[in-house]
């Protein structure tokens, strides 16, 4: 049976992990490669690096981080943040990423999704969607880390990027993100029912029951989580055992 995936996400700026990871006894908890290795050994199903670097120098650093991680971790790696062109996608894939995630650039230029999927295959292209609830059963797409509203409906946009060739959707609820009060179940269920590509739920994880809830009622295929793992509250293995005990198929 296909397992539901647990995916830790590391925010990286100028080659350093932002919210310092406190789990395990890492020599350098700010080193993304060392964090990646620790999650690899914990049995994470995949890993996401979100590059939040502003400068172009930092971007080159990110390519190096991806390349060193790919040499040491034999698990799927997704890189997002600041991807604007097919060339940016190519650079990250050649560095060793398996998938590249795009957000704002896909909204400004939807053809980028189609072009990138054509060149590299749908399996390599993730579209990240940041959504905020707008009314009952309605969610609006935001850009720039949730600061700028767009005219797009999140469920419709998800269907559009799937049509363009995206292989996966990384769906973040801006309402739930950072609250630790649980994922937005309605948003995840609405998008997952609409598209035929996998959906990764993001934003709001505070307890292990939250993971169960969004994978079950929210119909997500995977969960992205940062804080609950970074701060050592739970290990990946504990999360999986919890899910398994609630009948969610996981790789233990």
């Amino acid at each position, binding site marked *: 049976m296909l397992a539901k995936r647990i995916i830790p996400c590391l925010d990286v700026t100028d080659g350093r992990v932002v919210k310092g990871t406190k789990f395990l006894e890492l020599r350098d908890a700010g080193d993304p490669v060392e964090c990646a290795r620790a999650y690899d050994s914990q049995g994470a199903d995949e890993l996401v690096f979100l590059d939040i670097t502003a400068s172009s120098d930092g971007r080159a650093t990110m390519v190096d981080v991806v*390349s060193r991680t*790919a040499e040491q971790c034999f698990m799927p790696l997704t890189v997002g943040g600041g991807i604007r062109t097919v060339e940016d996608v190519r650079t990250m894939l050649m560095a060793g990423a*398996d998938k590249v995630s795009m957000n704002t650039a896909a909204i400004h230029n939807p053809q980028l999704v189609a072009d990138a999927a054509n060149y590299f295959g749908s*399996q390599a292209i993730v579209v990240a969607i940041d959504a905020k609830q707008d009314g009952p059963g309605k969610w609006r797409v935001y850009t720039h880390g949730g600061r700028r509203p767009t005219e797009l409906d999140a469920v419709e946009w998800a269907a559009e990027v799937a049509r363009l060739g995206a292989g996966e959707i990384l769906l973040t609820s801006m309402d739930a993100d950072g609250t630790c009060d649980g994922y937005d179940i309605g948003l995840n269920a609405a998008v997952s029912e609409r598209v035929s590509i996998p959906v990764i739920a993001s934003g709001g994880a505070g307890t292990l029951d939250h993971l169960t809830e969004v994978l079950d009622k929210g119909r997500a295929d995977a969960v992205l989580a940062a804080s609950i793992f970074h701060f050592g509250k739970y290990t990946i293995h504990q999360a999986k055992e919890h899910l398994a005990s609630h009948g969610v198929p996981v790789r233990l």
Partner: protein
Amino acid sequence: METQKKIGVIDYGSGNLRSVTKSLEAAGSSPDLVTTVAQLEACDAIVVPGQGAFGDCAKNLSASGMWDAIIEWIKAGRPYLGICLGYQLLFETSEESPGTKGLGIFPGKVVRFTPDAGKIPHMGWNQLKDTTGPLFTGMDADPFFYFVHSYYPIPDDASLVSAYCEYGGRFAASISSGAIHATQFHPEKSQASGQALLKNFLKSLN
């Protein structure tokens, strides 16, 4: 003392092969990228990874002259490990690229998952069933491997199949025939189970 076998990773320009070469290194070999027939001939075993589309891959391999060389290699029974597209190419045709011929080593066709199987691509960790043959020696039953694909081969000869996987029905997740092995899943992305499989492949060369 065993001499180190020369492993060639076929590079047909479709993308990054770092994870394949690095995981083969971690499993105890020193692979080289192979872009020409002459380089291929100097190898003891070849690994054909898979990225991109069936048709593009066939086109690129033909352009480099390696297409016929790979067919001869396999027909001579020399060691081969195909991954993903390197598995699918062993068959005759693919629904992904109608009109493009595969290597045609084994009778059978490559088909697309139907929407009732679930989300497409079939992406993530799935369990193998009924594993058999040298690639799975010493592994637990029903091991998890990482898959990412929308198409899968249906070999006419079911006796080739060395593992099945369930996704809206059973499909052939890997095959073995003599020294020819191929997997739909990605050992280079499958952490410990992937390393175990690659080590088994390397061991099979001695």
